[in-house]
């Protein structure tokens, strides 16, 4: 009864907040039947839709059990999960941005899979950063689902036209700025082509594309516990300053300051951008005739790093189909799915032991991206989403002041970031 009351109360809160989420995508939980095949429900976010769809399609065509996938817009994913959890309407399986996983785990949203995961023969070969963030109090809750690394893409055709060497991408953030400026100066007159681009009104975009430059320079953005922000320190300020210079000199597209996130990766494939940070998952979706160079993100003076992002996947704690759900998610990290579904489409693999396979060797860029998994970082913080991704969170204020506004406000805003990280 108490649970039902909680559900009604939650609906009441929904009504009061007039949440414009639209109708639910369905978290229906079918009762397992003794004989017949089971259909389990799965949610994923739009950012990693392609990978999830391919995996689900391959699973459905080779198994009696079926997976019904619902894709939710990336920006709305966290609120939708929260609303569904509050109403006990979570799907059987859901993928989540790996940086949100510690929070979801601490809220009890995922089922404890320790014994099942420990029984996997390749348990120690699963992507380490994803496994670390899916572990709480020595219990394992999630498996890696997709790996999405931030790298720099450069457009070789535009480089040639701008008089740059099309085979030589930037090796430092300063070189990146020089090359972007060259493209802008030579080709940017008509306002169609721009040197570079970034999501200037999108907290998640900043962490994904700017932080690797800090790590590459040997700096840190938070303490290991994820409770103190170090974003007012020199390493971060140097990175902000270079990007600020690019914006001030109008080397970035004019809408970079307003870009809220949904369309930030849309300009590069149109051939409008010289060089910019991009998610590795988009490599497989680029126009086939486009000549793209890929290089690791570097610090102001060199080094290399990446933000190892992507999704983890787990069984929801309210699922009634745990066995069928586990059958599916454990299949997704098996040899077949990893090589024939993920590697075949140039995706980064969830298992380090399969990094070199029959497909990866075909494209040296894929080999490069796979090799970065070990050099990159996935920051850990319990309050990551509300601090760094939320458009009303303190990090976006800080980043925007640093790049477009009054950089002197950074220390004070950094204290706000720390406060948000420490919220009980």
């Amino acid at each position, binding site marked *: 009864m108490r649970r039902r009351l909680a559900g009604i109360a*939650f609906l009441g809160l929904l009504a*009061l907040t007039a949440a414009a989420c639209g109708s639910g995508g369905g978290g229906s939980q079918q009762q397992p039947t003794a004989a017949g095949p089971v259909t389990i429900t799965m949610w994923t976010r739009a950012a990693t839709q392609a990978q999830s769809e391919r995996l689900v399609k391959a699973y459905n065509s080779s198994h009696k059990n079926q997976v019904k996938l619902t894709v939710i817009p990336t920006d709305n994913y966290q*609120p939708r999960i929260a609303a569904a959890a509050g109403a006990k309407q979570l799907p059987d399986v859901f993928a989540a941005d790996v940086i949100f996983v510690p929070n979801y785990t601490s809220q009890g949203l995922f089922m404890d899979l320790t014994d099942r995961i420990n029984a996997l023969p390749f348990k120690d070969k699963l992507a380490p950063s994803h496994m670390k963030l899916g572990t709480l109090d020595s219990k394992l809750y999630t498996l890696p689902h997709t790996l999405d690394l931030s790298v720099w893409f450069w457009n070789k055709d535009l480089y040639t036209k701008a008089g740059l060497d099309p085979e030589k991408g930037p090796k430092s953030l300063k070189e990146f700025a020089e090359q972007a400026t060259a493209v802008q100066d030579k080709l940017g007159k008509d306002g169609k082509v721009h040197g570079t681009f970034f999501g200037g*009104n999108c907290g998640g975009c900043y962490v994904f594309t700017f932080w690797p430059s800090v790590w590459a320079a040997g700096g840190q953005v938070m303490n290991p516990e994820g409770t103190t922000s170090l974003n007012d320190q020199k390493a971060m300020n140097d990175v902000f300053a270079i990007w600020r210079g690019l914006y001030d000199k109008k080397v970035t597209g004019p809408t970079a300051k307003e870009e809220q996130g949904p*369309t930030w990766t849309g300009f590069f494939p149109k051939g409008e951008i010289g060089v910019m940070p991009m998610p590795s998952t988009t490599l497989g979706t680029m126009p086939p005739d486009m000549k793209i160079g890929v290089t690791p993100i570097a610090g102001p003076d060199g080094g290399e790093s990446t933000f190892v992002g992507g999704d983890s996947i787990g069984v929801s704690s309210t699922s009634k189909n745990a066995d069928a759900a586990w059958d599916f998610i454990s299949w997704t990290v098996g040899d077949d799915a990893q090589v024939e579904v993920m590697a075949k489409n140039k995706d980064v693999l969830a298992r380090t032991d399969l990094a070199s396979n029959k497909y990866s060797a075909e494209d040296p860029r894929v080999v490069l991206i796979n090799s970065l998994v070990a050099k990159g970082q996935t920051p850990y913080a319990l309050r990551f989403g*509300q601090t760094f*991704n939320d458009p*009303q969170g303190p990090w976006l204020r800080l980043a925007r002041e640093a790049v477009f506004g009054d950089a002197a406000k950074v220390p004070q805003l950094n204290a706000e970031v720390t406060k948000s990280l420490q919220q009980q």
Partner: protein
Amino acid sequence: MSLTLGKPRGRAAHSAPPVRWRGRRVQGWLYAMPTAVIVAVLFIAPLILVVWMSLNKWPLLGQATFNAPGNYAKIPSNPLFYDAVLFTLKYTAITTVLLSAVALGLALLVQERRPGVGFFRTAFFLPGAVGFAAAALLFYGMLNNDFGPIDPMLRAIGVIDEPIKWIGTPNMALFSTIALVLWRFAGFNMLILLTGLQAIPTEVYEAARSDGANRWQVFTKITLPLLRPTLALMLILSVTGSLLAFDQFFIFTNGGPDNSTTTMVMVVYRDAFFRFDLGGAAALSVVLLVALVGLNTLMMRRLR
């Protein structure tokens, strides 16, 4: 006679009503029952539970723990709270004034039956048939600097040289949103005022004119005073709607730039669904509800 007869009848009604009366009373209850059940289930029960939620630390899953008045005490330290209150009030004031003026103007334009007036009434009302979220998305697309058609059109006819950042600065974001709200709601409010205008008897106008009143005098001494109840209804709807503003800002501006268009309900939404602080969000909802009821009571008294 009537007194002597009336007394025992009245007493009888208090002690034991005739069967026919009791039947009617039951009938009355039965008629009211569906509405009462709907109000109880969909309004009163959630309301009580939201108040209860606001007195507890309420996790997404698992047991709630009583922590009153913790959720209320921490409201003032919410970094977004004061700015959101101020912005919501500012938005409400501007929207209500502009919406009333535009709706009244439109209603006066189309109040008389003339050839073609039906077309204009329909045209003014039509945006009201578009879902609000869809309208917000429509404006987002139309005014988008990357692919929206408005900027190139204005540039082609030489009105502007540089693209206008429709949602790029706090003021532009606010006024673009107000333009959206006016477009979407002016027709609906016009319809409300139109019913009020048409309820004013023509004899009153005729009498005023035969007394030598000019157009302005007719408007200020006849139309406005007799329209007062309808205006009150429109104002209450507009103020309530504006104080609870969410969709337009959530979709169109995302609360930005730099939190400049973050409304009260967006703060509630953020607390509940980004910070997972359901108790805190419930407390904010309760505060908002109390403020809303208070304001509406005040307005009803003043406008009665």
